[in-house]
């Protein structure tokens, strides 16, 4: 816990504050001290903890699968190779069942999404105070280790998917085809073009936002519950903490899976002919 005997509110808000680095109007380039300063930094600031942990988990994923790619043989797989191949086959299964088009990118994308989000989510299993306490000892004031409980990370991935959807829609259907699809659905009449356009654009925009917010919502809620549980007396924490952590085996995997599958489904729609 930060500071000397913080109140519950202080404890919770402290745990929900990212380590933000940015240009503060008064302090210049600095780490934000508290939510207030972080807000004052505006858009041109960066959550160092979110970026750091997400890149670290991403590198872990890439390292693991690069290891697999190097050691993989067409012979009998053993040990870690076996486990990683299972994950690989799993994400390959997502493509086979949900993706109708042909793309060299979607397979790696699904694998990356599933594994990366899974690793980011699973940071939640670390004791809630462990890393922030260590960071505090090292003089770092704030540390949120679960990147997916930061909307920046989840919406970032969502918007990346959104850009890909736009890119593939235009590449496969042409700009006019894409525009026509937006204008003449669901009602195929010229007078309803504005209405169609609004409807379809909302649908288009809602996809990445819902992707990002779903993941963020689940992870954030889980984190808040963990923080609440850790406010209990130390001898009672495990009573609620353990079941909640076990429950998160499901949540963590499921959210990673849902994000990957929905991304693939959204991308698949770009390859479909209407």
């Amino acid at each position, binding site marked *: 816990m930060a500071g000397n005997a913080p109140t519950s509110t202080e404890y919770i808000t402290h745990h929900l504050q990212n380590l933000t680095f940015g240009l503060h109007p008064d302090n210049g380039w600095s780490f934000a001290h508290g939510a207030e300063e972080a807000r004052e930094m505006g858009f041109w600031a960066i959550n160092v903890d979110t970026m750091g942990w997400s890149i670290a988990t991403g590198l872990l994923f890439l390292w693991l*699968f690069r290891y697999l*790619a190097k050691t993989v*043989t*067409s012979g009998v797989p053993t040990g870690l190779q076996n486990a990683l191949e299972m994950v690989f086959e799993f994400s390959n299964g997502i493509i086979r069942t949900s993706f109708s088009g042909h793309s060299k*990118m979607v397979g790696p994308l699904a694998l990356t999404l599933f594994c990366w989000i899974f690793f980011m989510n699973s940071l939640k299993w670390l004791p809630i105070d462990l890393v922030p306490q260590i960071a505090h000892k090292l003089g770092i004031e704030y540390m949120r280790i679960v*990147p997916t409980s930061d909307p920046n990370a989840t919406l*970032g991935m969502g918007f990346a998917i959104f850009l890909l959807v736009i890119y593939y829609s235009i590449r496969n259907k042409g700009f006019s085809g894409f525009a026509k699809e937006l204008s003449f659905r669901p009602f195929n009449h010229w007078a309803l073009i504005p209405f169609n356009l609004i409807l379809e654009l909302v649908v288009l925009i809602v996809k990445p936002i819902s992707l990002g917010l779903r993941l963020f919502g689940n992870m954030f809620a889980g984190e808040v519950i963990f923080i609440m549980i850790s406010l209990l007396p130390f001898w009672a924490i495990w009573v609620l903490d353990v079941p909640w952590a076990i429950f998160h085996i499901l949540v963590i995997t499921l959210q990673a899976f849902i994000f990957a599958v929905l991304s693939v489904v959204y991308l698949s729609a770009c390859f479909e002919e209407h």
Partner: protein
Amino acid sequence: MNINMTLIGQMIAFAIFVWFCMKYVWPPITQALTERQQRIQDGLEEADRARAELHKANEQAEETLRESREEAARILDNTRARANQMIEEARNDARAEGERMIANARSEIDSEIQQAKSELRAQVATLAIQGAERILESSIDEKKHREMVDRLAEEL
């Protein structure tokens, strides 16, 4: 917890991860797995083929076994028949030989009897004449009487 540049940073990180995965991770794994799939398929086909061949070989072996068994039985039958025949022939030969020997002996006996008879006959004539000479002590027309006695001996 406000939206800031982290959003863009995350997008860039994501793009780099996907690119790396697409470039260095996905292709070798897919290739290896496809190869393995091919190998497994080949193996299964090979196994099927081997199984069919084994089945054929078994049938062939059975066929050969049956044929040789039949052949053996045939040879045995032939041999047995041949042996029986040889025994029969030997028996017949022996019987014929025996009969021939008996016949020979019989004819030899016959001829000996005949010889003895003729010798006896000759001797009888002489004896009779001598006996008669002695009885008669007289001169007898030897020539005349000899003829008579010879005729007598002939009738013996």
